[in-house]
Structures are given as structure tokens and as C-alpha cells.
């Protein structure tokens, strides 16, 4: 049997940056088992039956929230949901007060999405529950990176030495940053590709290659992870038009055909069809977009399970 450590090295999942490669392998190993669980006739195990989890979403989310909620329910945890739009945050309550109020109702774990970078870290310094970051501003989105890497590994085997390109809006993307950390810890080589205005300055210091040319990057990589253009975070224009972006950086069938090889295409969703990815690519046999969503539940179950073990 493969030697796997039994403990995560951390009590919270704040970002991939804090995880070790062993942690990531342990999460993947456990996710394999949960993937089997969610494909059974009855997709539920009683592991977390005495654990209460609060999902605090201070920012909109559909799939991450549903994915977390399903993962929690399939582990038999008790779940309370909270979204900022319908809460006392609107009345001026601070983050710490809101969370302390929820915790005094005896909550063991908190899954939080927040627009401010490092809000989960702040929380972890002040409260006792296990914190899981479900996306904090433009900082990290660790569970997405883990499910992306898990899906890649499932498709192409071990990621050591594999070439992964991340396309699109790197500047506003927490998924990109978490993906870079995660892939590097697993030994993959990473290139980021997009218009210069959407690539953060000095990002090469993280040890990634930078490219402004879609076709060269597609020809280089084994896996293309295509990110969404986050129009809601762009208060100024970063490129002339969506049409021009699609023309130069969108991944479509013709661009894929020009590479003459089998690529794996991924997208964390939601997809802007016809902008960063064309419909024929998103729905093609190269795409593992729906597997990513399925794996999301298994990976989140593994994370909740492993963190709950560290009380």
C-alpha cells in the first residue's frame, strides 16, 4: 500500500499555500474513497453525524455552495446556511460579531466565502471552529484547486512533469493562484496565458511561465485550464471588447485542431460560452468540465472529513 500520512498538517484550510504535498496526496487518497461512496445506490455515510457546519457566503455562489452542502449532507453533518444578502451584515454587523453569534449556537466547522482577501485567516485567529476557505476575494480558492488537480490526475496520471496552462483572467482569479500553488506542489510545470492587462505584474516570481500567445501555449501544454473572464470584478476596461478577447484568447475548435494533439480542457465554471471557451470545445470529448463538478463533491467530503478528525 502507498505510504500515506494520516493527519493533515493544519486545522484549517485557508489556502493551498499552507498545505504540504503530503497533505494534498492524503486529500486525494481520501477523495478516491468518497468518490466510490457517492456512486453507490445510497450515497451517504454517517461519519460527521455529530458535527454542525455553517456555510457563510458573503458573496454569491451557486456551484461551490451546492457542492459543499451536498458534501456535508452526504457525510451526515448538520448544516446551516447563511448568505450575506439576507442577513444582519446588511444592518452593519461586523464579520467577527456575525460569526461569534453563529458559533455560540455550537457550530464545529465554518465554510466561508468572503470578498475580502484573507478574511478566513482573520477568522481562524479569533475563533475556535475549523475554517474552510471557499474563496476569499482575489486571494485563494483552495477547494477548487484541489478538485482541479484531482481531476487532472484522474485523467492523465501523476502530475509530476506535466505541463498545465492557465488561460484568461489571472489578475482577478483566486482559482489561478490556488491552482499555481497546488500544481507546483505536485511537481507540474505551469504557464499563465492572457492579455498583458490581465496578467499580474511579477507573477513569474512564483515560478510560472508567462505567455501572451494562445496558440503557442496550447501547443506547449498537456492540460488547458480555462478561466472565466470576471466582468463583475473589472471596474475598468482591460481589453477592447469581448469579441476581440474571444478572437485572440478564446479556446475554440480551430485553435485546438491546430495543435494536432490530444489536450485535456478544463473550466471551473461558470462558463461564458463563446468568450473564453467555445461551445464545441466545452462540450467536446476533450472537456472534463462535468467530471470536475462531480469530483468537487468527493474532494470536499475528503477535506471536511480530514479536518473534522482534527478537533
Amino acid at each position, binding site marked *: 500500500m502507498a505510504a*500515506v500520512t*494520516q*493527519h493533515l498538517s493544519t486545522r484549517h484550510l485557508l489556502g493551498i499555500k499552507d498545505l504540504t504535498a503530503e497533505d494534498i496526496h492524503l486529500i486525494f*487518497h*481520501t477523495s*478516491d*474513497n468518497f468518490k*466510490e*461512496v457517492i456512486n*453507490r*445506490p*445510497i450515497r*451517504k*455515510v*454517517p*461519519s*460527521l453525524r*455529530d*458535527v454542525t457546519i455553517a456555510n457563510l457566503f458573503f458573496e454569491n455562489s451557486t456551484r461551490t455552495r451546492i457542492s459543499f452542502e451536498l458534501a456535508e449532507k452526504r*457525510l451526515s453533518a448538520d448544516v446551516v446556511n447563511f448568505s450575506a444578502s439576507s442577513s444582519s451584515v446588511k444592518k452593519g454587523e461586523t464579520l467577527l460579531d456575525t460569526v461569534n453569534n453563529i458559533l455560540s449556537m455550537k457550530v464545529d466547522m465554518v465554510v466561508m466565502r468572503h470578498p475580502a482577501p484573507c478574511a478566513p485567516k482573520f477568522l481562524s485567529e479569533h475563533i475556535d471552529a475549523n475554517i474552510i476557505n471557499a474563496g476569499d476575494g482575489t486571494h485563494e480558492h483552495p477547494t477548487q484547486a484541489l478538485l482541479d488537480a484531482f481531476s487532472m490526475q484522474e485523467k492523465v496520471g501523476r502530475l509530476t512533469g506535466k505541463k498545465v496552462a492557465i488561460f484568461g483572467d489571472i489578475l482577478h482569479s483566486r482559482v489561478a493562484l490556488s491552482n499555481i500553488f497546488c500544481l507546483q506542489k505536485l511537481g507540474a510545470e505551469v504557464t499563465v496565458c492572457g492579455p498583458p492587462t490581465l496578467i499580474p505584474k511579477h507573477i513569474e516570481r512564483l515560478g510560472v511561465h508567462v505567455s501572451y500567445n494562445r496558440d503557442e501555449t496550447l501547443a506547449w501544454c498537456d492540460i488547458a485550464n480555462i478561466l472565466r473572464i470576471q466582468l463583475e470584478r473589472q471596474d475598468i476596461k482591460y481589453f477592447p471588447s469581448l469579441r476581440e478577447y474571444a478572437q485572440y484568447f478564446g479556446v475554440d475548435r480551430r485553435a485546438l485542431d491546430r495543435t494536432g494533439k490530444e489536450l485535456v480542457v478544463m473550466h471551473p465554471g461558470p462558463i461564458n460560452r463563446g468568450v473564453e471557451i467555445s461551445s464545441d470545445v466545452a462540450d467536446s470529448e476533450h472537456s472534463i468540465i462535468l467530471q470536475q463538478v462531480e469530483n468537487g463533491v468527493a474532494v470536499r467530503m475528503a477535506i471536511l*472529513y*480530514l479536518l*473534522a*478528525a*482534527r*478537533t
Partner: protein
Amino acid sequence: MDKGRVILDQPRMALTIDRLCYQLIEEFDDFSNTCFIGIQQRGVFLAQRILQRLDQAMDIKRIDFGKLDITFYRDDFRRRDKPLEASKTDINFLVENKNVVLVDDVLYTGRTISAALAALNHYGRPARVELLVMVDRRFNRHLPVQSTFQGIRVDALDEAYVRVEWEGIEEEDRVLLFGHKNEMDK
């Protein structure tokens, strides 16, 4: 070298496995509606050995066999120091209306079997479930669980530890009794 005392050596263990096979035939005849579920990890070894013997010596083949991991069903999660590492569950059939022979190496507190019964429910409603173990430790049961077929009955103190070893995984087939759990740490 281990300090454990051998309470069942290789020749006796072979006899015991043969006896268990005959008892199973007596009970289930041609095994047409019967399946074996081995509890991960060490119950699987015993189940495999019995199926192998049924096949080779008695020419009984094609019995459904699954491996069940009970890690996610344990009642001591978050109550122990070490988290539990899961093994693979591999059951590619439903147990609906079948006779299930649940196989584990040692029956002690009964908690593993209780978790296994809960897990088994997720694969259908079996007609009945019988429990087969190599070692039945009769003292210190926490739950009302009994074995139907047992290799050997052992009456030992609570601090004692019984280990079933298998050729190919350990040196040879045998059952060892240790006076204290710490003694068996190599």
C-alpha cells in the same frame, strides 16, 4: 521476534478453514443466493482464503464477493487520537434479498460488525446476514453481536490482543495471543 503465543498454528488453521467451508456448505448448499462480504482489511484475507478453498477443494466457484470498508461508519470518529485511514470498498452487486456471509478476522467488542451492518444497508436489504470470524473473543463485548461460524473461541483479558496472520502478508498462517497490545508493536 514477537513475544506472542501461538494459539493456532499452520496445520490446525488449515483444518479450521476446511471445517468452516463444510459448515458453510451445510448451511448454504450450492451458494446460489449467497454472497461473501469481507471487512477491510483483514477480514478480506480470511474471506479470500475461504473462497479459494471452496473453489480448489470443493469445486464451488463463482460466489459473489465484495470488500467492505467501514471507516466512514465507525462510531469512534473524532473520539480517537489518530484519524482513520480508509480502504477501498468494492462491492459491484446489490445484497438485496441475498444471504450475506460477513467475514472478519476477530470479533471482540462488536463495534466493527455493528458499523459493517450499517454500511451493508446501503447496498440493499439482505435476506439474512451471518457472521463468520476466525477468532471469537467472548469477553468484553460492547454490543449484542454474535458470530454464526467461528474458527476458534478465545477467552482472554481485556488488555490482551489477538492477531490473525496470513502467509503472503506475514510469515505464515497462524493466530497469536499477546498479553498486552504494546507487546506486538515491532
